[in-house]
């Protein structure tokens, strides 16, 4: 299964050729010079895939990092302190989760406009809720245990307790969640790009290439198949990684 992780790392290793437009090569199917053929404007598909891959992975990493930090912070605070802090944060989470996943991201992206940074913002704005929920429930149950009482009795400040004692125990579950979150971010970014809400035109994106492939599928199916395969392979690798991690880490970190 971890062999498939290499599929994931592959895109990083391919060197990116420049995005040259050569209309003479329009829609050429795969051949020796262009391993995956050319797209509607004669650009080499393999090169575009590599650049798009780097972009997607970068965006997903940024989204996951941002979401995790925000979510874990807010969730841990809610779980530890309880009371109205908990209620307030929980209400915010519930209101945000009242929107079906991608809808809010689409709406935000529409309002903010195209661009990489805007995509990251749009996806993080909803993404943190998952981590917050997880952190909140884990920290809440850990807070009730004896060792937390002991730490408090010894005079440790809440911040110290949360950071040094509680968070490390929630780490395995969070890592699994982050893996699936990474995969979700890639799909979300591709979907946004597909709908025209991602990066601006010359920049290649998996979603944008899929959209182009969809329109050109009758004369030139390879334009669709290449990015489709790349995206799917990455998702499969990540899902299997997440499943594997979940089984390995054998999750019960807290007594329920």
């Amino acid at each position, binding site marked *: 299964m971890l062999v498939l992780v290499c599929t994931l790392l592959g895109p990083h290793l391919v060197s990116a050729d420049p995005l040259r437009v050569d209309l003479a090569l329009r829609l050429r199917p795969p051949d020796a010079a262009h391993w995956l053929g050319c797209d509607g404007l004669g650009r080499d598909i393999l090169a575009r895939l590599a650049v798009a891959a780097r972009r997607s992975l970068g965006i997903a990493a940024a989204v996951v990092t941002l979401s995790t930090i925000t979510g874990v912070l807010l969730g841990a605070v809610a779980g530890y302190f309880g009371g109205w802090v908990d209620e307030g944060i929980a209400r915010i989470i519930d209101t945000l989760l009242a929107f079906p996943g991608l809808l809010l991201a689409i709406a935000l992206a529409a309002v903010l406009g195209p661009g990489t940074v805007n995509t990251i913002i749009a996806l993080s704005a909803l993404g943190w809720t998952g981590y917050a929920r997880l952190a909140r429930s884990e920290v809440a149950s850990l807070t009730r245990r004896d060792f937390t009482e002991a730490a408090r009795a010894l005079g440790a400040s809440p911040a110290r307790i949360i950071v040094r004692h509680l968070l490390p125990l929630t780490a395995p579950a969070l890592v699994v969640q982050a893996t699936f979150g990474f995969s979700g971010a890639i799909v979300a970014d591709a979907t946004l790009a597909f*709908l025209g*809400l991602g990066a601006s035109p010359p920049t290649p994106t998996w979603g944008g290439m899929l959209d182009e492939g969809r329109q050109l*599928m009758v004369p030139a199916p390879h334009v669709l198949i290449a990015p489709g395969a790349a*995206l799917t392979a990455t998702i499969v690798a990540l899902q299997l990684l997440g499943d594997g991690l979940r089984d390995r880490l054998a999750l019960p970190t807290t007594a329920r």
Partner: protein
Amino acid sequence: MRRRLALLPLTVLGVLVLVSVFLHLVPGDAVDVMLGDSAAPADREVLRRALGLDRPWPVQLLRSLAALSQGDLGWSLSYRTSVARLVAARWPATLELALAALAFALVVALPLGIAAGARPGTAIDHLARWTSLTGVCLPTIVLGPLLILVFAVHLGWFPVSGRDGPAHLVLPAATLGLGMVGILVRLARTAMLVALAEAWAHAARARGASPLRVVLGHALPAALPPVVTVAGLQAGALLAGAIVTETIFAWPGIGRLTVQAIGARDYPLVQGCVLVIALTYVLVNCCTDVLMLWLDPRLRDGE
């Protein structure tokens, strides 16, 4: 249960406020869209004042909320008709698609998952796991065009796009539903495995009940609640997925309308669509909660 119902209006209000805030993140553009680039600034000001866009945004917010409570979703800039009318016209199409996808998912996932749970390690089990992986990993934007390429273009079994009869519903419903199939198959299988391992299942077999009876009569009712719950939650997610699926298949529903509205920068229409989708989602989740509590009395403890 009562607590959940009481929270519902609060959630709805939160949704309304959030969506209204969106519209007011882009104040000038509404007028720019309507008048284009060549209009004089003075003319823009006149239109702004007429539309009430020159008031401070909390005031605008309150006015929007007041209008919304009366069912007025605003005026579409690109279609030049009321947003409510546009949304109402497209709504049945999206509902049809979502229900078809749900039916597809249940019909495929439940028997497969149950059979796989009842017979782990067999061919059925492997089929179930493969299906699950496919459903979870193939994003809609890949699956949709792929299905079109194979079944509509090459095999010619189904039409490529549009909404004109039952044949047109198959590919979009399958695309939208496959993700749900992936999740439900896994869940049904696990729930079945757990149920069949319980003491009372062994007891039933010891009493001489046939394996089929144990599976269908005893294990199934116990395994069903979590599956139904997740199905209900996912049903709401179908609404978001519909946005992409409708775009791929040119299905005339609210999802496609939303994307078109975004492209036309018709923010009142975007707001209206987002609102309707979000509120439907809230409603579906609420119904699922109620259904879950009704199905599984064990959850009905006092809150």
